[in-house]
């Protein structure tokens, strides 16, 4: 049903590091879940891979949560966003034009 979200912490195929897979619509109502999921992963000293290929909608607030998590990664660690929709990618490019440590990967499992 639209509006439901699934978050799975699991490796993203083809990549080392920590994985988080998002499925469904992400808006104001799912923001606490997204924040909690990222908080749980924060202490791991590893790259963070987020698979957006199953995402049907992401609002600006959810992107703010993701980019905030990127900014608080340990030194030298990066966040990889896998398969964002063109609209999500455009919103990130527009609202966070110079965010360091963020990599966009257009195909899941494309490797790093």
């Amino acid at each position, binding site marked *: 049903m639209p509006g439901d979200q699934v978050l799975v912490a699991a490796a993203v195929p083809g990549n080392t590091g920590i994985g988080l897979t998002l499925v469904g619509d992400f808006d104001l109502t799912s923001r606490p879940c997204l924040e909690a999921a990222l908080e749980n992963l924060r202490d791991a000293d590893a790259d963070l891979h987020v698979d957006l290929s199953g995402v049907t909608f992401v609002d600006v607030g959810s992107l703010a949560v993701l980019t905030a998590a990127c900014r608080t990664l340990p030194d030298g660690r990066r966040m990889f966003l896998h398969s964002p929709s063109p609209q999500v990618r455009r919103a990130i490019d527009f*609202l966070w034009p110079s965010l360091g440590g963020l990599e966009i990967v257009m195909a899941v499992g494309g490797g790093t």
Partner: protein
Amino acid sequence: MTGRCDHPALFYRGWADYLAGTVPFIRDGLAADQRVAVAVPGPNLAVLRSALGGDAGRVHMLDMNEVGRNPGRIIPGVLRAFADEGTDTGRVRIVGEPIWPGRTDVEYPACVQHEALINRAFEGRDVTILCPYHAAELAPEVLADAEATHPVLVDREGVRVSDAFAPEEMVDRYNRPLPPPPGDCATLRFDVDGLAAVRRFVSGHAVAAGLSEWRAGDLAMAVNELATNSVVHGGGAGTVRTWAETGHVVCETADPGWITDPLVGRQPVPPDGVGGRGLLLVNELADLVRMHSAATGTTVRVYVRRG
């Protein structure tokens, strides 16, 4: 900041005036190694490009009809985008023509608010923004408004300080109740649990009215941000309405909140900043945004072109 923003209006009555008022301004900037941008309607851009000859390549040239079709986008997407780009600290010069005879009555109030807000948005920065007005074709009321939104006025007679300069009053004066929506428009009440329904409502009606899936998705994304603002800042709930007009699909949200900072959605937000990005994205996605916000509530209307 210790810089100074200059924001003169240039009243021109023909191409000779236009070029006499803009070309030396551009060339003086280039001669002083300053960064120069021109954002004017397409036909004027072509005339300027031709007059500048080889110098046109050193000027950032934009068609205001494209980049500034939505007046709410001009400060963040055109002026700040250019002024913030440079790493040097020298003065930046911009020729910006946001009001031309083809502007519609629906667009015009947003244009005046944009002109008035430039003064506050660039306060303390070394930027000169020269705004040409086609004095021979624009209505006298439009030129009177320009005298109130620009501290300095330039015409054939020379340069003078505007006695009518009152930008804050102009922001308020054009913060007007919007014309009522059509009585038979589609309407949906929402609260925090209704955001997904708002998106389906908007995209469904937008596609039915002829928008592409891509633009319908843009409109749904924009209205989702407005509805989220209603939930978070506007009393927790609101109403979304949508209808089709000649040329546009229109969507509005209404809630009891009051947006007291007119620059919200017109300023880039730093990476660690909180808030303000939703309206910024709305201005980026829409072909026109009109807003009325007062103690009685806030209505934001988003227009997306059909076809």
